[in-house]
């Protein structure tokens, strides 16, 4: 301990730190997708939205000097991409999954193209709040340096849970997702509800992207997302379209991502590829455990094209 090392404690601490640091993009994308899917549509394009959000946040933060303006820009970019998805899907006989895949490629491609000149410069980053002030151990302090976006995400999960159950808007989104006929009979435009839900979903995914480029890992490059957007979309199914479960699932994925490097740092060096794959193994395992060929997934909105 005298040499500043904390030995095996690194592993649980890294998993905790990882859960806080790595989970935020998962959390925002999955909450956003949760809203979209509850309205009866799947937006697979959120990987593209995440990358576009990361790029535009970095660009605006660099040009304006204000990272918060970057976060806002990322949200707006995401909402616009969401509107594009919803707009195309409003046309008759358009498959939302196919549009999503197209938008995923479009978003990442456009972000790489526009982001070329942004790889070299360093943009101002989002500040962190030091929750580890009570500890003398620098490792604990580092693990507990929390970004406000993470706190917003954590607060958003129960708010969404509550909103889906008790608010008028929550009911409308759920109605559009469970039975578009019922929503129409109530005199609401299903397309408009889905447009708004997809835009809000895109807004949140864009903010998730801004966290990647402005906080952790904290710079823009093309490998930044490495599939986190797609993982987060899968996470929604895994969390049964429940915002609270999305929160836990995101934290678990964040912690699992930290497991591989942390184990190596304490000397568990064999099979690091396996530990690096931990998040995916976790997904597969839970999918297999919870799936049944005899019934549809519990909690799945009935209008969703995968369950219909």
């Amino acid at each position, binding site marked *: 301990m005298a040499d500043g090392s904390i030995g095996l404690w690194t592993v649980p601490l890294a998993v905790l730190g990882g859960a806080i640091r790595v989970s935020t993009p998962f959390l925002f994308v999955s909450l956003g997708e949760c809203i979209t899917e509850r309205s009866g549509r799947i937006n697979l394009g959120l990987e593209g939205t995440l990358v576009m959000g990361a790029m535009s946040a970095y660009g605006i933060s660099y040009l304006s000097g204000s990272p918060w303006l970057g976060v806002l820009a990322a949200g707006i970019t995401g909402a616009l991409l969401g509107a594009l998805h919803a707009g195309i899907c409003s046309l008759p006989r358009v498959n939302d999954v196919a549009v999503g895949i197209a938008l995923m490629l479009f978003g990442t491609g456009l972000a790489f193209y526009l982001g070329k000149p942004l790889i070299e410069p360093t943009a101002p980053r989002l500040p962190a709040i030091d929750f580890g002030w009570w500890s003398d151990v620098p490792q604990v302090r580092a693990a507990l340096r929390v970004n406000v976006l993470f706190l917003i995400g954590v607060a958003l999960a129960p708010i969404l849970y509550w909103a889906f159950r008790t608010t008028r808007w929550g009911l409308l989104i759920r109605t559009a997702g469970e039975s578009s006929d019922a929503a129409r009979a109530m005199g609401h435009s299903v397309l408009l509800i889905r447009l708004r839900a997809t835009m809000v979903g895109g807004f949140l995914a864009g903010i998730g992207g801004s966290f990647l480029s402005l906080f952790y890992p904290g710079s823009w490059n*093309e490998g930044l997302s490495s599939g986190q957007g797609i993982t987060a979309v899968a996470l929604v199914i895994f969390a049964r379209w429940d915002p609270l479960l999305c929160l836990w699932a995101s934290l678990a994925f964040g912690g699992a991502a930290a497991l591989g490097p942390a184990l190596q740092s304490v000397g568990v060096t064999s099979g690091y590829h396996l530990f690096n794959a931990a998040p995916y193994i976790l997904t597969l395992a839970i999918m297999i455990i919870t799936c049944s060929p005899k019934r549809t997934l519990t909690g799945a909105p009935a209008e969703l094209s995968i369950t219909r």
Partner: protein
Amino acid sequence: MDFGRISRRHLLQGGAALTLGAAAGARPAFAADTTIGFIYVGSRDDYGYNQAHAQGAAALKKIPGLKVVEEEKVPETDAVEKTIESMINLDGATLLFPTSFGYYNPHMIKMANKFPKLRFEHCGGLWSDKDPKNAGSYFGYIDEAQYISGIVAGYTSKTGKLGFVAAKPIPQVLRNINAFALGAKLANPKATTQVIFTGDWSMPVKEAEATNSLIDQGVDVLTCHVDGPKTMVENAARRGAMVCGYHVNQSPLAPKAYLTGAEWNWEALYPKFVKMIAAGEIIPNFYRGGLKEEIVKTSPYGEAVSAEARKHADEVKAKFLSAEGYAIFKGGQVDNKGKTVIPAGTDRGQKDPELEKMDYLVEGVIGATS
């Protein structure tokens, strides 16, 4: 050397000589309007490996009569064969630089056999007599620059614990880790170097996690061997650790934390290749060099580097530059499992091919190759 002044006439003369040579079946033909194809595994402005190559390609673009075509983000699969074929068939490329390690075998070898009249220059491969004669592999002994980084890191570290974020346990990466660790031990015999493998060349989140884990273990100077060191450099600097760069100079990213770094010098080598071709010389199939041959270089020292460290590092650098050279890997070297990996009495010099098959981590490195 100023390669920018090679005139079109010189190239034409060289080209004519080459055409004659090709007619005799000796060498591929390079016309004056030679098209050169560059293939990168990642983004060519990644502040790292690919950017270093792209800087070399940019140096070629300045030479009149040369056309450079580039494709980035080509995976190390069949995709690179398709890229090579399209560069040859559509762009008329006659000299190709597939720059990523995994392109070599079987992909580039296959293409070199298919197009025996064209020249293929691969970065990092291990050309052997069995491989096609029109293929070549070049590489720099960047471990020499890593050794210098290690010396500087060893002097700078207060805890005696150094960290290395690495992509995959392949010989070139292991050689860099070992050279860095041995350099550090020169400065501080008790220094250890802890390595974390992320599993792939570009994994920003994993690299950031590895950096944090190392610092949590008490590491206070870090370096890396991944495609884009930006993530490691920035995250380490944020935690107050010092860094040594890799591939290109990353000091603008962390001016206070940047000590020195191991950089490529492709902008010197590639024009040299083209000049050799234009002059009708044969590029050796197996082309290597280090600090002395100007294939690698070190970044200027940062402000945190002590006078003592500078003095020692400069002394060793001078040995690398001297006529007799300097061997990093000396006889009697023991690996971190206690096994003697280099027999006593035989120093493995810079060009020793055994070093390119390296599969061990030396004593003082914490980590394992599998």
